[in-house]
């Protein structure tokens, strides 16, 4: 029996290759994701190991809270005076106050370098006099020694065309600062730490510009020989005042690494979701291919049974074939995964997500997962066709193998399908609505079950759908149309399985499109509702930095401008949750933003006051004059008075502060955005010219109108969307290949019919047209079902669950119509090869073939 299996496989190399393709691509995606994750993980390990190479212990403030959006633990800076007092602690060999924070370097052409909002961070630090604590090596010039001198990383020097001796500008706290480049440094062997730009100041400059005078971010220590890291940390801890902590260098390294990996977690989840989708698509293809080949071999299997092969032997011979295909395909997919990882990295870079380069890491875990998953999916998908092969009676050898199983699906099947569908929908909504610890898993399982439910019901609905979709064909294309329609209808089971793969892809595409379109619409709606100004000056920083508040003052003084109001953001823990907190100047902000004050006084937002959104006020039973504790990272817990309750959640969210409260509680004072309203009677062009004239002194800023600003806000969504579309495109290609494969096998099965048609006068062109039309009907069927599911999911999440708070479902009809058209074109394209092969069939062989 073993021999028979292998001979079968060899005889059908091409068919197997086509089947294997789906598994190969799915496995490649999984392997690629794992390889990329491992590679990034190792790169970050290396990066932080270099940063903290000589650091044995670190003294820092205790974390106030963990920041949102993977920003890690938030802690205030430490007093510089502490350095001297800790120097006498037993075991300390050397120490250095360390400063890290937002700083942006301006290149020779006057343009700010890097893209801190979406790419690698732009950082400022102080030059460490202690060699063991300094991860940078001078490659040109000397270390910064006097005020106004800086050393910069080699990548920034290259990107900004800066050389030793050049003068340029840095953007940090306060107005743009002129500096002289006196040194260029490398980071270990790399030009820069993971693509970030670094400006190294003298310590006093760094304190003035990056943290605050007399403050360090943390203090690093080198242990005396023979003193362990843990011992040094213990000694330091004993000498520390309340609120500070001493930790080992090792701990700091691992914390930094896991922070970086957490930030990539969502991206990895996304990739795995698509790998699973690709494998599901592959599973349908495998099921179809094996079903058809088993049907083709009915006589052969009947003969084997007649000659004494047991059911089990027939079944195992089919399964053996599946295992071999699965193993081979997984192995190829694994190898391809390395290329996929490199491609994904390039893709991320192209989309503005910079990942530091590093050697490819190929872990044993990747190999095992890829092989097990790939082979497992193949065998699972081949199980039912294999069982069917085992059930072939010996008498089949003597009968004409009429392979016209109709397979509408039994009543039980319909019930099972509806059950799975209901279960999937239940899981989906539970995951979305209930507050679970791992909603992604539940939602994922729910989505997979829904797709399975529809796939089970597929063969029941395939006949009526094909009938309807194919209805216009006879009148459009005459008898070729009739034959194509009938061919699509003659085996609903097979049509359904071929269409299911495409259904999954189109379902995902349309769901994600609706989701993203509604998210964008939500942004537009809220901004349109609350913004009444004319321009937005965007600092180009991503929430960690910004532009000096002086800019807003200068713009506000322009005669062409009525109001200019800066907006600052920070994090605080309020009512048990860490939030992004916005601060605005009450004197100017409300002339530009209508926050819809409900109770209290807008002008009452002093240093001790907070404004609360109406829903948050209701939830926490707050009224004007109540005091709530607010935890700030830099200043600790403050009791803030509720001074205003407002009715528009944008741009401030649930809470906002007046500028004086922000100044009292945050070390850095950056405006992220400056909102501008032009003076009455001034033309937009004149106002824009005046504003631009000021902003040219602030590199990195851009003046945008509302539409441009919205476009920029949407950009990350669109970038993510592009990535998703590219991944889905891969899955769509597999699904279309599946349809092509099914067609090719169907043609083999209908070889006599094709011979007959050709004999009685069907031209090659007509025959190709029949096959193309059948392909289009199948493709449109998958598309129609996918659209239905996708639109329902999209509607459920956006409207029923109201994920964006606006309830506005934006269905991008044009995109969805484009999807349908593309599916039809895809159907035509995928049919080209099978159609050509069918047209080239030797008529005579087709007729006389047994």
């Amino acid at each position, binding site marked *: 029996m073993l021999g028979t299996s292998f001979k079968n496989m060899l005889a059908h190399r091409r068919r197997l290759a086509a089947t294997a393709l789906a598994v190969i691509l799915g496995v490649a995606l999984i392997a690629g994701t794992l390889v990329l994750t491992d590679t990034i993980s190792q790169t970050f390990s290396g990066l932080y190991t270099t940063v903290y190479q000589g650091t044995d212990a670190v003294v820092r403030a205790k974390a106030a809270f963990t920041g949102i959006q993977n920003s890690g633990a938030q802690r205030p800076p430490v007093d510089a005076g502490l350095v001297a007092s800790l120097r006498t602690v037993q075991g300390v060999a050397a120490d250095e106050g360390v400063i890290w924070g937002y700083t942006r370097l301006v290149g020779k052409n006057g343009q700010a370098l890097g893209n801190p909002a979406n790419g690698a961070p732009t950082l400022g630090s102080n030059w460490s006099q202690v060699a063991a604590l300094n991860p940078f090596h001078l490659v040109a010039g000397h270390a910064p020694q006097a005020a106004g001198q800086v050393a910069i990383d080699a990548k920034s020097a290259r990107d900004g065309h800066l050389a030793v001796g050049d003068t340029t500008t840095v953007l940090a706290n306060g107005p743009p600062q002129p500096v002289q480049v006196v040194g260029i440094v490398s980071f270990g062997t790399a030009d820069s730490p993971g693509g970030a730009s670094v400006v190294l100041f003298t310590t006093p400059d760094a304190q003035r510009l990056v943290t605050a005078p007399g403050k360090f971010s943390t203090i690093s220590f080198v242990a005396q020989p023979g003193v362990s890291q843990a011992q040094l940390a213990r000694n330091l801890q004993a000498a520390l005042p309340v609120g500070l902590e001493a930790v080992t260098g090792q701990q700091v390294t691992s914390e930094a690494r896991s922070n970086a990996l957490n930030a990539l977690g969502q991206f990895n989840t996304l990739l795995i979701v698509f790998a699973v989708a690709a494998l599901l698509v592959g599973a349908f293809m495998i099921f179809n291919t094996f079903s058809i080949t088993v049907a083709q071999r009915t006589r052969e299997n009947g003969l084997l049974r007649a000659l004494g092969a047991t059911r089990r032997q027939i079944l195992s011979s089919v399964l053996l074939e599946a295992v071999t295909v699965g193993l081979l395909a997984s192995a190829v997919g694994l190898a391809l995964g390395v290329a996929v990882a490199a491609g994904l990295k390039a893709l991320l870079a192209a989309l503005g997500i910079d990942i530091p380069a590093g050697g490819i890491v190929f872990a044993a875990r990747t190999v095992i997962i890829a092989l097990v998953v790939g082979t497992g999916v193949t065998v699972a998908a081949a199980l039912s066709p294999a069982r069917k092969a085992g059930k072939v009676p010996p008498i089949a050898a003597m009968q004409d193998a009429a392979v*016209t199983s109709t397979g509408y699906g039994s009543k039980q099947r319909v019930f099972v399908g509806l059950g799975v569908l209901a279960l999937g929908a239940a899981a989906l909504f539970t995951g979305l609505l209930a507050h679970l610890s791992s909603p992604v898993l539940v939602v994922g399982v729910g989505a997979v079950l829904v797709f399975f439910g529809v796939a089970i019901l597929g063969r029941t609905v395939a006949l009526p759908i094909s009938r309807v979709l194919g209805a216009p064909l006879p009148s459009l294309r*005459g*008898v*070729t149309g*009739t*034959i194509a329609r*009938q*061919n699509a*209808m*003659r085996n609903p089971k097979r049509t359904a399985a071929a269409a299911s793969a495409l259904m999954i892809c189109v379902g995902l595409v349309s769901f994600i499109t609706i989701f993203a379109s509604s998210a964008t619409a939500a942004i537009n709606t809220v901004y349109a509702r609350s913004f009444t100004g004319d321009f937005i000056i965007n600092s180009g920083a991503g929430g960690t930095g910004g532009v000096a508040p002086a800019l807003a003052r200068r713009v506000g003084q322009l005669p062409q401008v009525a109001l200019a109001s800066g907006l600052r953001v920070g994090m605080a823990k309020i009512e048990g949750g860490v939030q992004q907190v916005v601060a605005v100047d009450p004197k100017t902000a409300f002339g530009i933003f209508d926050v819809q004050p409900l109770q209290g006084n807008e002008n009452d937002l002093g240093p001790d006051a907070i404004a609360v959104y109406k829903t948050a006020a209701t939830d926490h039973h707050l009224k004007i004059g109540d005091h709530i504790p607010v935890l700030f990272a830099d200043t600790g817990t403050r009791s803030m008075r509720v001074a205003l309750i407002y009715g528009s959640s944008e741009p401030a969210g649930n809470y906002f502060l007046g500028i004086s409260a922000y100044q009292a509680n945050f070390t850095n004072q950056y405006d992220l955005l400056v909102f501008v309203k032009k003076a009455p009677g001034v033309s937009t062009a004149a106002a824009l010219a005046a504003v631009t004239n000021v902003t040219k002194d602030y590199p990195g800023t851009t003046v945008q109108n509302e539409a441009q600003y919205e476009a920029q806000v949407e950009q990350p969504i669109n970038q993510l969307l592009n990535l998703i579309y590219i991944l889905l495109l891969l899955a769509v290609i597999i699904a279309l290949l599946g349809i092509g494969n099914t067609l090719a096998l169907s043609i083999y099965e209908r070889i*006599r*019919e094709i011979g*007959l*048609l*050709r*004999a*009685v*006068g*069907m*031209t*090659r*062109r*007509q025959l190709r047209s029949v096959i193309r039309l059948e392909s289009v009907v199948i493709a449109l069927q998958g598309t129609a079902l996918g659209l239905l599911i996708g639109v329902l999911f999209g509607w459920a999440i956006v409207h029923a669950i109201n994920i964006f708070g606006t309830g506005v479902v934006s269905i991008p009809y044009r995109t969805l119509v484009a999807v349908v058209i593309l599916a039809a074109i895809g159907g035509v394209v995928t049919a080209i090869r099978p159609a050509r092969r069918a047209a080239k069939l030797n*008529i*005579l062989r087709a*007729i006389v073939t047994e």
Partner: protein
Amino acid sequence: MAELSTSTSTAAPARAAARTEEACKIYGKDQTEVRALDGITVAFEQSRFTAIMGPSGSGKSTLLHCSAGLDTLSSGRAYIGEVNLAALDDNALTLLRREKIGFIFQAYNLVPTLTAAENITLPLLLAGKKGDQAWIEQVIATTAIADRLKHRPAELSGGQQQRVAVARALASRPQIIFADEPTGNLDSRAGAEVLSFLRRAVDEMSQTIVMVTHDATAASYADRIVFLADGRIVDEMGHPTAAGVLERMRKLGE
């Protein structure tokens, strides 16, 4: 029917509806060479029913396939009317088959997804033509399948299926009909039915028919029998009877 029977089935010497000259069909090379057709020159006269007989491997089916443009000759020529088949490309050949030739095969004659009516008019539908409705109705009446028109082939008996095939071959009024063992899969009663339809098509509709068979009874419905052996014509017989054919076959077998 009156109009149809004006052309006589006995007109001689009739013009050839199809013919071959020195037709050779060779498979394989050198030592494994097989001459399926070894220089056959034969003409199939208009409005006559010709049977081709011979033992298995005599080349009778190959002769039919090559004459009908389903297969190509290794050397020699095959004509439908005055058209040399070798001069036509695949498309022209297909159009020729659609317009000038009718086919009846032993099995798998009908497209399973089409109804009997659609199968009958298939060559016309493929050509985008309506066809002569009165003629088609007459053909349907003659082959006695009027009550089966809406059925799919799977819902028809073997005899009914072959009658539909006969109707299809006649529907487009082809210049010639090639039938390859049309009764091979039928019981004797259904077979006789189909053969008498073919006979009537020749007698009443002046149809030209060439039929390959190895069954003496079937051959006896023909006007003329051509006997083949080893790719050559070895004998001929006019106005055959079943007994006469059997007698001749036995002689050839010796």
